[in-house]
């Protein structure tokens, strides 16, 4: 019985099938809102309101020819997309969805799992770098070096910003942090600076404008993904979408109070809160232009990191008053 439940958990919800369906839905949402902000139509004719467009793109890519460059490291080149999908799907298992909350915790929830989640979310960046490195083409190499350079910029503010609500809640366990903010919703407001900083850093982690330097289309043709085609490219794009869902789920858990209320209500909360965070991400994407790699580093260390430290100070001061 427990084995069946675990299999259901891994394959259906919140496992692979749910992730596939929901991440393509989120990509549709992102593309439709982006198009409407620019006074265009967005996907319209594939399925009602174009909802099946990301699925159609995925299937189309699966059917294309899969070329591996001669000089590339073949085993690494082929294994990386699969490894990336595995990494982000595992990260999803740590979020407190399904109907688990503090009274009946999920078997995956343990003290310190927020740190493990942040660590697993670093793996996609490493996958991008190795993908660029194993492609051995000039444009991929530049893309790969830019991926790592950007990692030095946004990783520290992201960690600091995401960990300050954990300090306020007094626990390193995602389910406990979510429960803390569910009982005291007013305490979400002092964390606003951290919320904004973590949304910007999530945009950088997902490599979207203004931080889409590693795969800037007009400069380096595709950066990390220049040499990828066919099934491997389809898996990479799916990995980016799942990363978006997991990242916004993490921010919704830590800052917006998690997903309480059982199976149905919890699922509704999950959808509404993650779509809210994705709406903010799309807004930032439509609002700005791409900045240079040296400007990313100076921006993060001059503005984002001090703001995250400020958030930490506010949290520590408030904790003295709350307890």
């Amino acid at each position, binding site marked *: 019985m427990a084995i069946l439940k675990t299999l259901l958990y891994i394959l259906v919800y919140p496992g692979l099938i749910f992730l596939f369906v929901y991440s393509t839905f989120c990509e549709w949402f992102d593309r439709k809102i982006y198009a409407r*902000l620019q*006074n265009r139509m967005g996907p319209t004719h594939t399925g009602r309101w174009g909802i099946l467009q990301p699925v159609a793109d995925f299937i189309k890519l699966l059917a294309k020819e899969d070329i591996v460059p001669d000089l590339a490291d073949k085993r690494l080149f082929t294994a990386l997309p699969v490894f990336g999908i595995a990494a982000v799907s595992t990260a999803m298992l740590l979020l407190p969805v399904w109907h688990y909350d503090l009274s009946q915790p999920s078997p995956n929830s343990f003290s310190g799992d927020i740190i493990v989640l942040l660590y697993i979310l670093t793996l996609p960046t490493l996958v991008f770098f190795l993908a660029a490195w194993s492609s051995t083409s000039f444009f991929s190499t530049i893309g790969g070096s830019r991926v790592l350079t950007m990692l030095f910029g946004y990783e520290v503010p992201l960690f600091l910003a995401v960990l300050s609500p954990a300090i306020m809640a007094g626990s390193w366990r995602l389910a406990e942090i979510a429960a803390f903010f569910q009982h005291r919703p007013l305490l979400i407001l002092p964390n606003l600076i951290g919320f904004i900083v973590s949304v910007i850093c999530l945009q950088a982690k997902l490599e979207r404008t203004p931080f889409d330097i590693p795969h800037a289309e007009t400069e380096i043709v595709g950066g990390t993904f220049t040499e990828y085609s066919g099934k491997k490219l389809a898996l990479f794009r799916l990995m980016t979408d799942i990363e978006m869902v997991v990242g916004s789920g993490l921010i919704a858990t830590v800052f917006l109070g998690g997903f309480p209320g059982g199976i149905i209500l919890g699922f509704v909360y999950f959808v509404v809160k993650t779509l809210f965070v994705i709406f903010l991400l799309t*807004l930032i994407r439509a609002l700005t232009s791409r900045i240079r790699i040296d400007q990313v580093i100076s921006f993060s260390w001059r503005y984002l990191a001090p703001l995250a430290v400020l958030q930490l100070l506010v949290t520590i001061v408030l904790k003295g008053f709350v307890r």
Partner: protein
Amino acid sequence: MRIAAFLPEILRHLFKKPATVDYPFVKLEVPKDFRGTPFLHPELCIVCRACIRDCPAEAIDILTVNEAEKKFKMVIHNDRCIHCAQCVESCPTTPKALEMDHLFETAAFSRWDLKKEWEYAKAQVKPKAAAGAPPPAEAKS
């Protein structure tokens, strides 16, 4: 230098109708002087061959079908036509024998589907070359 200077404008666009025209389900009107493809009014043509002389793309041909009965055949090669309407301007008759229609969806699977032909007898009208009262057009077909 303002942060997010664009924000009110793009949020306003969320509630506006998109500027895209959903072609081919919705079609836009073309203006009345639009240059589509050329076509012939056979009863007005006097076979002066001015259109052939002035066409930059050599897209018009007039062949003699029967010399005695003055029967000719004009072929317009729409795959060579560049839609400049110089043939319409060079035509000296009043009213003009060549005219541009408003068709622009002229894609075909083979270039031989794009040739248009007319067989006709030469019209007995004097060419209208200078400004003045236009003579009555007596066309015999």
